[in-house]
């Protein structure tokens, strides 16, 4: 086997299986669940770019996710679900995302990186309040949330499924290229030893800003995928709990592995759905967030590299022994 097939073989296999799901299992519950997984997988991978590759912690990554969902939701709702609305909304959302990233970078980076987490949280909470405010009710439908009509070509389950999958794969390829680029290498250097990167002559400020922008853009696209899957958007997309969920997904999958987000999102979304179903019969399962807390501690304690990280580690060790 060449190195490439060994590396990408399993991924291609997974992709084929995922692509066959509508054919094998039909559409409906399962495809809708997977569409949510796609959205959160992309969200988690965008988060990994910050925490895993650059070494920056954010508690408000939902601000990008929420903005993607809301802006596209508003444009779709107010254009009666036209393709133009989707396109313009996407462009506006991406533009806003870039501005937000640069704004947050300019406030937080000049001072100290610790502030980044706080500032993202503050900005996220501001948007949370705004999205639910009565003042913006004509635009956002305030606390009640908005039903979002989709363009005709996205009104059936299958097209939505393949559209989401295609966007996810495209973003995954871009992210992978990005972390392998010279810029990605500099970001990993920043994670490892920021002072040394600076002493080599890299403008750490500029590289962190780039990381924020790319990560923010990917999270925004994730929000867009989410609103397309849900055909509904409410203030929940800006909630702190979403930022915490995505942190958990990234940690479970494995920080700094990129692909870990895929697995982390799958586990958390499926678990959330199952627990919510079970809670219908056994109310105790409604408290599943406690279980997530326990899971979080177990992973951090016994599997600090997450699932994907641990697997990659053992493969590496085994091939090291052979060689």
């Amino acid at each position, binding site marked *: 086997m060449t190195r490439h097939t060994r590396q990408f073989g399993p991924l291609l296999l997974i992709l084929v299986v995922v692509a066959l799901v509508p054919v094998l299992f039909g559409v409906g519950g399962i495809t809708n669940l997977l569409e949510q997984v796609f959205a959160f997988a992309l969200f988690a991978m965008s988060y990994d770019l910050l925490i895993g590759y650059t070494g920056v912690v954010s508690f408000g990554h939902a601000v990008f996710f929420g903005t993607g969902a809301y802006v596209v939701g508003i444009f779709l709702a107010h254009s009666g679900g036209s393709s133009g609305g989707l396109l313009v909304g996407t462009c506006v959302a991406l533009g806003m995302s870039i501005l937000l990233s640069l704004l947050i970078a300019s406030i937080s980076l000049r001072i100290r990186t610790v502030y980044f987490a706080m500032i993202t949280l503050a900005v996220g909470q501001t948007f949370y309040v705004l999205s639910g405010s009565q003042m913006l009710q004509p635009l956002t439908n305030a606390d009640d949330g908005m039903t979002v009509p989709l363009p005709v070509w996205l009104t059936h389950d299958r097209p939505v499924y393949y559209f989401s999958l295609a966007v996810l794969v495209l973003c995954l390829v*871009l992210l992978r290229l990005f972390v392998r680029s010279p*810029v990605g290498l*500099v970001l990993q250097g920043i994670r490892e*030893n920021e002072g040394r*990167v*600076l002493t*080599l002559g890299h403008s750490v400020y500029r590289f962190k800003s*780039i990381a924020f922008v790319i990560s923010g853009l990917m999270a925004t696209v994730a929000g867009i995928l989410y609103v397309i899957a849900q055909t509904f958007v409410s203030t929940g997309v800006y909630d702190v709990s979403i930022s915490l969920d995505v942190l958990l997904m990234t940690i479970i999958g494995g920080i700094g592995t990129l692909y870990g987000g895929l697995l982390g999102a799958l586990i958390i979304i499926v678990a959330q759905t199952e627990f919510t179903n079970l809670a219908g019969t056994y109310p105790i399962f409604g408290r599943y967030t406690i279980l997530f807390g326990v899971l979080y501690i177990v992973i951090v304690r016994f599997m600090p590299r997450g699932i994907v990280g641990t697997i990659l580690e053992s493969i590496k060790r085994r091939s090291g022994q052979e060689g």
Partner: protein
Amino acid sequence: MIEMDLELAHLRVDYAQTTIIQDLSLNLQAGVSMALVGPNGAGKTTLLNAISGHCPVQAGRVVFGGHDVTRWSVDRRARVGMGRSFQGIHLFPHLSTLESVTLAIAAREGTPTGRLFSRVPEQWQQEAHTYLQQTALSHHAGKAANTLSHGDKRKLELAMLLALRPALLLLDEPTAGMALAEVPVMLGLLEEIKASGKYAILLVEHKLDVVFRLSDEVVVLQQGSILAQGTAHDVMADERVQAAYLGGQHVEST
């Protein structure tokens, strides 16, 4: 070509209320190797910090290659040709030696931020290999920096510095903490670097034999001021220097 000289004029550095470097003036010409010696706490590291931008300067100027860099940031100084190593190990623990050196090449080349999705150029990797070869680290190319022996870590620091192709090398005790057996290798490397004549070198070193072999000129620092300056032989023959050293008791030898 601009001469990449270093000029320090009436430099003063304070930590809190204490003056560490006092009215210090010094010239280092391109291609010259200067050793900075002096007892512990004399302010040698602080002086390097002032030159590389790692600590603020209260008075005076640092001029490098015709630029007044006194108020410049660390990274900006590095970009005009200052290469700095530290007294302690200061590496990228989980990056491979190859990646670490490539990172230095990327800094030198000013990583094009427009090409966010393209691979690390093959050329850089090949070049990185040549620096690993030069520092006798080729066989560790894929190893993470934190798995290296202390001596190899020191060599990796050097490989990264060379990859920057700096005009000025600021080396803070490059053999510190090395096993006795490893020192000659490092010394050989540093001699080669000096002999190439490509760099101005400011070397902090306690080991006198290293100082004798590697320096054209020696500056003795005591309590933040220059006590003596000249060739190694002249300086070491100086009574005041001997007094300072005997008082300090910090002459090390290999």
